[in-house]
């Protein structure tokens, strides 16, 4: 999908045969007897020689490299346990933080209930997750509020190359982090937060059809009574 004609996006159902001629089965698909079938409800997309089914629902399954928003649920002498809104608990080792944490001193840095922005470093085949917040962009999030949306809607909220997030930031002036795990942290003046939260809820409730960016832009332009400076985008993609 390359911004040309807005094609009809067909919803596939588990067991649907996909037209994967000369393509390899990607995520959300499986191969049986040389044919590719959809494994979950979603929308078909082709990318780099793979057929994928972009999910429309489902839980967050951690993948290496994802930036997530986690909540501290427990702490040990040299690590914290983080709820990353997935079936798998994620430990954050004290070494993977920007601080020099002494053994047993973990509660001086992060406590139960704190919210962090972190990265998933690795996920092994047994789905054991390793987190890191050593990089400068990561850290503890103070103030603001955390919203939960369906993880399947996160790519839509980000928009192509972050266009949707940029649009929301431009108007509302909120500080905003979008975690791949369906958690969004926003902070700013009450009006901006109100509008941003509304837009996020609309995106969460919306389906896979194109035109969402325009819809959000219309809302924000009407709410703030001025035009957007970002160029209009006809076809916002489900991916980023």
């Amino acid at each position, binding site marked *: 999908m390359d911004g040309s004609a807005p094609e009809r*996006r067909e*919803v596939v*159902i*588990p*067991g649907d045969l996909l037209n994967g001629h000369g393509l390899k089965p990607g995520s*959300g698909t*499986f191969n*049986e007897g040389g044919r590719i*079938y959809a*494994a*979950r*409800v*979603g929308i078909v997309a082709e990318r780099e020689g793979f057929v994928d089914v972009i*999910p*429309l*629902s*489902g*839980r967050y*399954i951690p993948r290496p490299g994802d930036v997530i928003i986690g909540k501290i649920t427990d702490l040990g002498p040299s690590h914290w346990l983080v709820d990353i809104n997935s*079936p*798998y*608990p994620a430990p954050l080792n004290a070494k993977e933080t920007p601080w020099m944490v002494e053994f047993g001193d973990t509660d001086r840095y992060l406590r139960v209930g704190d919210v962090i922005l972190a990265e998933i470093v690795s996920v092994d*085949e*047994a*789905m054991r997750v390793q987190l890191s917040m050593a990089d400068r962009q990561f850290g503890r999030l103070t103030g603001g509020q955390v919203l*939960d949306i369906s993880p*399947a809607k996160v790519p839509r909220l980000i928009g192509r190359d972050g266009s949707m997030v940029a649009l929301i930031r431009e108007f509302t002036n909120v500080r905003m982090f979008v975690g791949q795990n369906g958690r969004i942290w926003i902070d700013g003046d009450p009006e901006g937060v*109100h*509008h941003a939260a*509304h837009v996020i*809820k*609309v995106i969460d*409730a*919306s*389906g*896979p*059809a*194109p*035109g*969402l960016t*325009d*819809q959000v*832009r*219309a*809302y924000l*332009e*009407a*709410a*703030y*009574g*001025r*035009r957007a400076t970002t160029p209009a985008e006809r076809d916002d993609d489900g991916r980023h």
Partner: protein
Amino acid sequence: MEDIEHIPKELKLIDAKGIRLDGRRADELRPIKIEAGVLKKADGSAYLEWGNNKVLAAVYGPREAHPRHLQDPAKALVQCRYNMAPFSVTDRKRPGPDRRSVEISKVISEAFSAVVFVEQFPRTSVDVYIEVLQADAGTRCAGLTAASVALADAGIPMRDLVTSCASGKIGGVVALDLNKDEDNFGEADCPMAIVPRTGEIVLLQMDGHLTAAEFDEAMELSIGAAKQIYELQRDALRRRFASVAEAAQREAEREPPREEPPREMPPEMPEDLPPEVDDL
């Protein structure tokens, strides 16, 4: 248990013309209605009406399996709970699991384990809850059919939907999809579930007696009906996801970017959500 006084003694379950008590022919299904995505808090859900059966199915997960010792380090568990509401039958059903519902839960979870890609989610469990609100024979088939739609709605990767149907023998005739009277007073009932794409059988039970020829006939009826039910399941899922797609499309078309003077309050969007009602 069941009051049968109202049924005349000479009444036949199926008459000479092959018409049953409820007016169906031997190879006819009861009307089926499926709706997907009916519960907000569940990851996936479906509501199904099958004749006088009313069934609600909810799916949660994949989520951390509890208790921990049940976790399988190599794959996900598919756990199912089939439960009949106390008001689902004419005599009040004593609430809670009994031998029958434990058995049905087991066979249904095994049927789903055959299609779900369990190895993609080690150490988790996928929990399927089937609540029978109103029962009129064939509830395990109804429950399984609904739960299969709920699993797909939850975005659980699987090889195909599972479709289920029963056939039996009434008044000496092999008939499709028995209702309560036919089940009680007929000779046999044989529920089964298949993976329609491959024809694989994932559940097969029988209550009563059928000869090998009658069994083959019953299976043929059930498999034929399963194809119809499969289409209903797929249609329910397409409606579930197409409706959001079309709603958003219409929304986008109806509301072109407006140019208005600045206002104090933002205009309300048509699908305006009530402020801050979540986070319970």
